[in-house]
């Protein structure tokens, strides 16, 4: 059956069924005045949609609703995006079939694609109860409830207009009047103009949404995957980027490795925004790869450094600092730490009794010297002890007169010995935020990670 349908469903097979457009209502009649009034409302509201709605699906829905409320009795708008088809339809007196529930099927997509490629208006007269009508409606509206609604409206003339932007057809708007009325030539001229405006706006929505999609994909690749509780560690993290518009930055956090033997990485690639985020991603990948061979953090950062130096076009571009820690959980619940520092602010161990220890392990920054070598220091985390790593967005956060600094950290962590990791991260992040105030413009990327042996009751 599908083969059959596809063949006869081809719009070209049905072309030529269109008749001439009807006459409009006589000039000056009450009906005509009301119609002009409605068109005015439509254009006003459309301008509102165009300036406020930047999400393709929402824009498609709103445009459909405006058309069906003010101009015609039935409207469908479909838009082709990189993420697939976005469609909405509405018949007067019915609930909209919105993009949440409207899935464009495969056959329907074929027909829509063919119509798009024609890049020109199409007009069909489809008398009730004819096989042509059934096929055509199925091609245009798939199996959605819109078909039934159109039948109920007793719509005969159907107009489809391409949405043309930058020389391409990006979508299609399909319209009909009820009660066997057809669209007049004047209606068509008006709707073509409306379609032009809609197309430009929808095109902009698609561009915005594609950009967001790229940024969101990148961002999600930078967020540390959640650590399963079976790993024996309680890990919490926080990160906030300086350039929130692009939603990504150069600070990075990663936690990986088999249960009971985890690698914790936190660092800061030079710069801000997308460029820094790409550099950060590369470092994370290098660390993960190196860790597959040997989990010794000094060796891991040494190899990562070589990769960065070898790949970099310039030292400025590859410069980064970071801390890499290997955390092995013993049978007694105590975590043995090996920590390597590559030019990064010193991590802190917050002991359960509240004492702070700075981890003084120093090595050169990453991506500068080809022959840099690293060492690691050894520490123990008993239950209730916490390792806290952070980027300079914390210590160098600028307040009114001075920087947050290590004093700020000490003040924020006071009394938190033995607290869960998330309390420690949250309190530190909150303190930095309060310290900085609203001066968001000179904020740096900020990242914090806290790790402690998983508490199973510290009574």
């Amino acid at each position, binding site marked *: 059956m599908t083969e059959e349908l596809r063949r006869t469903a081809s719009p070209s097979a049905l072309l030529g069924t269109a008749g001439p457009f009807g006459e409009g209502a006589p000039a000056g009649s009450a009906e005509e005045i009301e119609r002009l009034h409605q068109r005015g409302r439509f254009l006003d509201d459309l301008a509102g949609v165009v300036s406020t709605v930047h999400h393709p699906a929402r824009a498609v829905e709103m445009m459909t609703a405006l058309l069906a409320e003010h101009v015609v009795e039935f409207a469908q708008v479909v838009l082709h995006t990189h993420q697939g088809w976005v469609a909405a339809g509405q018949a007067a007196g019915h609930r909209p079939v919105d993009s949440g529930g409207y899935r464009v099927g495969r056959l329907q997509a074929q027909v829509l694609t063919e119509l798009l490629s024609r890049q020109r208006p199409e007009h069909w007269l489809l008398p009730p109860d004819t096989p042509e009508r059934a096929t055509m409606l199925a091609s245009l509206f798939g199996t959605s409830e819109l078909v039934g609604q159109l039948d109920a409206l007793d719509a005969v003339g159907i107009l489809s207009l391409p949405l043309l932007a930058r020389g391409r057809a990006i979508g299609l708007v399909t319209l009909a009047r009820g009660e066997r009325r057809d669209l007049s030539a004047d209606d068509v001229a008006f709707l073509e103009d409306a379609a032009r405006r809609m197309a430009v706006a929808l095109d902009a929505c698609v561009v915005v949404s594609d950009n967001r999609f790229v940024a969101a994909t990148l961002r999600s690749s930078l967020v540390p995957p959640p650590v399963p509780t079976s790993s024996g560690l309680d890990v919490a993290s926080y990160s906030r980027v300086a350039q929130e518009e692009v939603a990504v930055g150069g600070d990075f956090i990663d936690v990986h490795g088999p249960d009971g033997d985890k690698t914790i990485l936190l660092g800061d690639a030079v710069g801000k925004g997308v460029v820094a985020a790409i550099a950060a991603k590369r470092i994370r990948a290098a660390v993960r790869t190196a860790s597959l061979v040997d989990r010794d953090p000094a060796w891991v950062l040494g190899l990562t450094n070589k990769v960065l130096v070898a790949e970099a076009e310039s030292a400025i571009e590859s410069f980064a600092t970071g801390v890499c820690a290997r955390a092995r959980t013993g049978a007694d619940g105590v975590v043995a730490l090996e920590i390597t520092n590559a030019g990064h602010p010193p991590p802190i161990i917050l002991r359960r009794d509240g004492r702070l220890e700075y981890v003084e392990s120093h090595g050169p920054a990453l991506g500068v010297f080809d022959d840099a070598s690293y060492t690691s220091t050894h520490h123990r985390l008993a239950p209730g002890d916490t390792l806290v790593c952070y980027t300079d967005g914390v210590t160098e956060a600028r307040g009114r007169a001075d920087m947050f600094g290590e004093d700020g950290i000490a003040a924020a962590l006071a009394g*938190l010995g033995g607290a869960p990791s998330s309390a420690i991260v949250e309190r530190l992040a909150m303190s930095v935020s309060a310290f900085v105030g609203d001066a968001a413009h000179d904020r740096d990327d900020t990242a914090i990670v806290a790790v402690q042996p998983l508490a199973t009751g510290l009574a």
Partner: protein
Amino acid sequence: MTADPAERYWAAVSRNDTHEARSVATSLLREGVPMPTVLEGLVGAAQRRIGELWASNDWSVAREHAATAVSEQVVRSLREEQARLAAADRSVGADRPLLVVCAEREWHALPAMMLSATLEHAGHTVQYLGADVSTTALQGALLEAAPRAALVSASLSSSLVYVRRHVEAATSVAVPVVVGGSAFDRDGVRALRLGATAFAASAADLESTLAALPTYVEPVGPLRDDAALEAYAIMAELPSFSADAVARVRSDAAADAVAVEAIADQVPHVFGSVAGALLTGDSTIVAEITEWLDGVGRARAADTTTTQAVWSAVERQLGEFPHALDLVRSR
């Protein structure tokens, strides 16, 4: 060991025992106790108790924070557990999400998290963004998720100014905004003045509110009346006003140093609340904060001159703001 679950939960929370707290809560859920009951009976009750212990000076802020982190972990687990149960019965629709956020600088994340869990329990798809959500981050999420509505949570009256920013951000892309949390009055007067599309006094009341929400709303533009302009100016000067006022309180107050610090810590919140009162035209905010500050002082055996010192330091900074001065003087 078979004690009342609420007591066992409290015992676990108060000794930072996430493991035990989680197991008390998730086993109730598995036994079929509805999510809202678990949340209210265990988590809500514990949080209120934490608040009292801090107010009465029995607990430090750090301890309050640590215990709340345990509750947060628990609610996180409850949401995961619920998602697993829901995935099993497959009845959840691919609805447009509800976006749940805290106002910017609002770090009370738990109320918004509890709200998210309750909404998910009722079958809604929720995207929860957590504490301290900047307007830019909100805008990004609005573009990416195209939510049905944005739900903004605020616990602090000093967050009301930031709530307004979220209202402006969401409505500028036609998305309806529902506000709630302990920053608001029960009748929703503050919410109305902030231009929110709707207000719900509790998560339970929210269902009918959501059903009545419009799909699209008109943009809510920036406020330009004198009181609002004062509120914005105060917020812009908040760090310096606070620093100066805190310095005065430290030098003027007679109480012991720890008590003075506890009271001085509230100064930014006091300024922010005055701004919130200006923006909403609701003077009861200032009355509430006065009472709260007195309570903090009393519990720390500070005589009234210390809280008095706060108010005179605040007044000094507000010299150029007639509406704000009016509010503070007639409190």
